[in-house]
């Protein structure tokens, strides 16, 4: 029973992490239909920038976080304007931006390796606190992972719900042509979602840096899990990405009741297979118009 409770809590924590990544990747995907694989290495860059600022320059962690966010936003917007938009303009088949994004992925990941070197980078100045609540155990970073999802997810919800540009994002997600018809500048909105989606990835990258340290490969799991969360939750729905992220975290964590630890991440893929085969529109997504 205690184990089940612990795994449930772990599921919420991991789920929050995946959900946040899913939201960042998902808002870009839902609005522009671009499979932005470079989201992964941008996540990595954010972690390394924070590491460099905190561990090498000795800046406080909040400042390091700001620098990480800034770097992620610049790279995210840059990848849209310099890489994807030209393909959109010449109406390239939609797999072309995807291939290009794999190219950008491999370039960025290895540039990080060249610039910062390989090996795990940790911020020694930070010590992770350990907390108990009854039989359940968690760390300070775990709390932050949940808090960040609640705060950023909430802020995003408010932005989308209550601001004019937020609604423009929802409009473009729903029906891009109709968005143009009512006079929305769809290019501006695309740039905006690349900025928002990339910005969201930075805090979760910093938390992983503080928890496990940064490695050049860390972005792969980030973008992959984000992608899975989006597919599981249902393409085109930001709420779906959150639910998909949690479903993923829960399945992964609770699966450990029966399945050995080292197969943990394979469980997520099994969920993915099942969803794609049985319910391609996602667990909670409406059937999408294509």
């Amino acid at each position: 029973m205690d184990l089940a409770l612990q795994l449930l809590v772990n599921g919420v924590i991991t789920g929050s992490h995946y959900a946040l990544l899913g939201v960042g990747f998902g808002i870009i995907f839902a609005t522009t239909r671009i499979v932005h694989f470079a989201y992964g290495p941008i996540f990595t860059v954010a972690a390394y920038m924070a590491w460099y600022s905190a561990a090498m320059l000795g800046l406080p962690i909040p400042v390091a976080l700001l620098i990480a966010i800034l770097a992620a936003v610049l790279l995210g917007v840059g990848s849209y304007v310099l890489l994807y938009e030209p393909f959109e303009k010449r109406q390239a088949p939609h797999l072309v931006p995807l291939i290009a994004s794999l190219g950008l992925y491999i370039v960025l990941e290895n540039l990080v390796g060249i610039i910062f070197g390989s090996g795990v980078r940790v911020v020694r100045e930070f010590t992770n606190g350990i907390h108990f609540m009854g039989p359940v155990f968690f760390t300070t970073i775990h709390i932050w992972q949940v808090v960040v999802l609640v705060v950023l997810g909430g802020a995003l919800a408010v932005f989308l719900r209550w601001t004019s540009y937020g609604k423009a994002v929802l409009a473009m997600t729903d029906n891009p042509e109709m968005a143009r018809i009512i006079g929305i500048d769809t290019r501006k909105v695309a740039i905006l979602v690349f900025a928002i989606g990339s910005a969201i990835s930075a805090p979760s990258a910093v938390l992983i840096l503080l928890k496990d340290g940064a490695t050049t490969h860390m972005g792969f799991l980030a973008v992959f899990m984000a992608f899975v969360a989006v597919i599981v939750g249902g393409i085109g729905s930001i709420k779906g990405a959150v639910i998909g992220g949690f479903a993923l975290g829960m399945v992964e964590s609770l699966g450990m009741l029966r399945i050995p630890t080292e197969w943990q991440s394979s469980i997520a893929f099994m969920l993915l297979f099942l969803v794609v085969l049985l319910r391609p529109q996602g667990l909670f997504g409406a059937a999408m118009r294509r």
Partner: protein
Amino acid sequence: MEYILHILVMASLYVILATSFNLLIGFAGLFALSHAAFYGLGAYVTAILTTSLGMPFPIPLIAGVAFVAAVGVLVALPAIRVSGEYLVIISLALQIIVVEVILNWRGLTGGGDGIAGIPNITIFGGRLSSPGTFLPLAVAFAAGCFWIAWRLAHSPFGRALRAMRENASAAQACGKDLVYMKLTVFAFAAGLASIAGGLYAHYFNYVGPDGFTIDETIYILAMVILGGTGNLWGSVVGALVLVGLPEALKFINMPVDIADKARLVIYGALLILILRIRPEGILPEPQSRSVTATATAGGSQGKAQETLLKAEGSADAQPILEGRGLHKSFGGITAVSGFDIVMRRGQVTGLIGPNGAGKTTAFNLLTGFLKPDEGEIRYKDKSIAGLKPHQIVGAGVARSFQDLRLFTKMTVLENVVVALPRQSGDNVFKAYFAPRQVAREERENAERAMEVLRFVGLEDKADERAENLSYAEEKLLVVARLLATGAEVLLFDEPLSGLDGNALQEIFPVIRRLAEEGKTICIIEHNLDVIKTLCDTVYFLDEGHTMAVGSPDELMNDPELAERYFK
């Protein structure tokens, strides 16, 4: 010297990997990012069978091919149902699972340490232990694999693959079995990749999980894109360039670790660059000339006319295709209900009615693209309801699409050839084991296709890519492709919409003549001039069922129907 030979061995392995990957993404358009996993599995099968069971070359290699081809079929199963981003993520997941299994199944794979001590290949008592001795074998295998890939790509099966890539539903409407095609091409691509893996294991005497990750898949992908998708020679060039080029880095003094990463940066940057400046790659997809050349050489004229254009009987107005009580609803919305139709040999039947009346749905039901909820479809007194679209085409009922769905990157002639019925080359085994029969049929088919093109007046455009045709010519090609199926019943979905008066005058006689030859024809059309000129019988559909049947004049002078038509 030794070093250059090593590079050449590696280039040979990558030629195998890039050409086989090209079959999948370039020819079949199946974007599955799991090629390094196939490669890795092949390597591990060889490693395990040689070290644990002591099996001699080439048994492990053959076992690897069989096993990995089976895994390829497993990946193809989701590919039957999903495409695009879904296939990307599923195959990516498979790629990760494979590496994960290798890492975790320590007892079998050695986990992160990998498997060492794989024996060298021994041929005629000689051990191939140095790059120099291994190279001839590697090149021989690369050539052999290239030949296998080439044969596949340039057989009728390969043409069908490209058609599927261009438009899956249109390929089905040409009688192609997509499930068979997808499973087969995955099995081939995976099996070939495993050969490269087996050679890798013997060559390095070691396999470890690091070499078969997603980065490796992207590396091979870069070769295919750089060389040119849909061109196997392009993949050879891409492999040579991407294996060779970064070796230049060796002359710059930098740590090995950095050099490795710089190499990957170059791959990624090249991939982006080629997509930006030359998306078709160094060697773009060729237009297969073999077919055209043989065809224009001419042949027995009029032969095709007999076999393709003539129906089995004369224009005797016998009922051929009948739909009875057809019903179809989507969610809560009824598209077609209680729909009856009879199509007669030698007659042109028209379907008219206001927007959303259910005309296209009716076509989809009759041709198996949709399954009716209720009702019966009989073709020459046999029930064909429930058959797959390609089976219905094979039986003798074919259709065209409102939005054309031409195979735009293929030539006009290929568009027609691909639709010809009963090609033994559609079966891959015939392509390898009965090459003469296939080649003979290819020549005949090219002639038949030319005959069809002459019939519609497109013979001068045979070598043109379909995307370069004018709109009216595209419409003619749609007619030609439909004709080429050899089907007795031809269903045209708005064959003439969007054409101006002159172009109409070109197509009218073609369709009229088909009916006179004994074909059974049905057309959906909104332009009432067309209906008046062409049709013998007209069905007026509204709200999913037939409101009236009669001659065009009867229907158009009926004030009540006019009212309905303009409602």
